[in-house]
């Protein structure tokens, strides 16, 4: 970790006897977006909570800015549902010490950028899922943090709102913030500068999306029928399979790997390792 990055080194998190994270090292540089991916129980939320400081590490070190320079959107609604959009933004900005003039200016700008200007007097509880997430993100960036931590901000959100949310968080990174976003959508993770793949609380893969894809051993093949004898998965109407020795089974052909394939292969390998 350089002086310019935020993140953690050999981080361990435990809840009682349950190990949520073990030996996880992760870094995010200012002006970039880092994606944390993994299935349910992989440890994404624990990592983000440790980065945000709401969970105490059992081992390792965490490097984060002072809390006035940190923005966080939890996996929950992250907004006060019985306050209006405007009141939520003002409460959050006020909590981070923005003076009234600056608060007014930033609230106005955020309402415009998030498309929530028309809903500024609506209760947050009456917003759609996508609008609520945009409000939560706006609240987290109102004080222009150095580190922005977002726990699955796009889960359960429609595709248009997902794209808008990514536009907003990319804008924060462009403004100089280091952005960490947990997601279960690998097409989103491909847009990030770096990716960390977690599995059962451990780091499975990390690097740029290209590095993660390039590190995949063997060959991924595709066909209309499920190839026998190989670990396989569906992609649309077709079947893909991982050939560890690089051979091509009958009625299949090699495909260009993407991040989703690379993560699936990594998890298949990990499953085999655990089974052994």
């Amino acid at each position, binding site marked *: 970790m350089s002086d310019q990055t935020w993140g953690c080194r050999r981080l361990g998190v435990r809840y009682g006897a349950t190990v949520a994270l073990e030996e996880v090292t992760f870094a995010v540089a200012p002006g970039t977006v880092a994606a944390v991916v993994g299935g349910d129980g992989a440890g994404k939320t624990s990592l983000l909570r440790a980065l945000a400081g*709401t969970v105490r590490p059992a081992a390792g070190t965490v490097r984060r800015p002072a*809390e006035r320079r940190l923005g966080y959107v939890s996996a929950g609604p992250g907004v006060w549902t019985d306050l209006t959009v405007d009141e939520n933004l003002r409460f959050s900005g006020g909590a*981070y010490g923005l003076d009234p003039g600056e608060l007014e200016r930033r609230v106005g700008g955020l309402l415009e950028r998030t498309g929530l200007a028309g809903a500024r007097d609506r209760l947050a509880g009456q917003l759609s899922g996508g609008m609520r997430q945009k409000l939560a993100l706006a609240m987290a960036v109102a004080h222009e943090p150095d580190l922005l931590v977002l726990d699955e901000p796009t889960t359960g959100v429609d595709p248009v709102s997902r794209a808008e949310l990514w536009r907003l968080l990319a804008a924060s990174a462009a403004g100089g913030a280091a952005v960490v976003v947990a997601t279960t959508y690998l097409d989103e993770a491909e847009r990030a500068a770096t990716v960390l793949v977690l599995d059962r609380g451990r780091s499975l893969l990390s690097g740029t999306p290209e590095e993660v894809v390039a590190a995949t051993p063997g060959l991924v093949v595709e066909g209309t029928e499920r190839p026998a004898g190989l670990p396989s998965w569906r992609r649309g109407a077709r079947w893909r399979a991982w050939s560890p020795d690089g051979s091509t089974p009958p009625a299949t052909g090699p495909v260009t790997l993407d991040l989703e394939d690379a993560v699936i292969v990594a998890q298949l390998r990990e499953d085999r390792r655990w089974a052994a």
Partner: protein
Amino acid sequence: MWAMAMKEFRQMRRDRRTLAMMILLPVLLLVVFGYAASFDVDRVRTVVVGPRAEQVAAALPERLEVVRVAPGEGRAAAVEALRDAEAAVALVTGDGGQPQVLVDGADLFSARAVVTELRGRPGLPEPEVLFNPGLETSAIMVPGLMGVVLVFVGTIATALGVVRERQSGTLEQLAVMPFRPRDVLGGKLLPYLGVAVVDLAVIVTVGVLLFDVPFNGPPLVFALGALLFLFVTAGIGVLISTVSETQGQAIQLAIMTMLPQILLSGLIFPLQAMAPGVRWIGYLLPLTWFIQLARGVMVRGAPFEALLLPLTVLAVQGAVVFSASIARFRRDLAPSGRGHGADEAGAEQDEAAPTRAGTR
């Protein structure tokens, strides 16, 4: 139907608090109604003053338990003893003739028992009831009900307010904001305390104007006692919130703390009529001391010095409960132990103890 019953049984088995309440509540009610639910006061604390105090004290009926005999004191000291709740009855003897019998009308059930006992008894005149001459129930109940209202607002509203943050997931959001735990707690409590103060003012006004409840003592002492009591009840509310995941659980726990207070504080049943063990449980409850304070100030017109005991007990209870609630709340809100409000550019950490934050 069997499948439904099995599902319900499994859910009930896992909902330990409801199960505990279902089992404990009947036991509690049994204890209360067995040992505490009595209006019959057998022993009434009595002081006897004046030149023939020794002689008169020796001849009193058994119900009058003499706690002090002071031949050198007069009527003023006797009234003071009643006002300061040292005794419920005072006999003022002279050089000859019948002694005066003074009864504390604020101690309603003792007063009624004594008036009944002594009325028409040879050698004793008609008792003189002080502070609440008409022995009105409302004069005694309204100050007590104020305490109940403060328990409602302090405990239930506070507990629900904090649990709502946890249940909706916003407590975690507050945890990352640059607030100190005491700022969050103070900010959350302030509006509820404001509502409680308004409630209190309304009840006092209605009690005085509508039910002719007297307000004889210093309002500032009453305000101080009410504030201390509010701190205790709000602290209990926060403690409840730190061990409750849902508003339903918080209400359950709040009821379990409120019920003993309402039944064992002397609000309904006189403490003197309770079995000693149950009475001592009553002495541990904050409402008991607020009621003594409220009745002391409003009905007896007792001064600050006479109310030092309830004020001190409430202050100690408030300090203990509130410190515990802040410690528990801090554990939930700032597990990383960061320097809240620090302006340093980066905080390298190497921490060792696990804890939890918000909901999981």
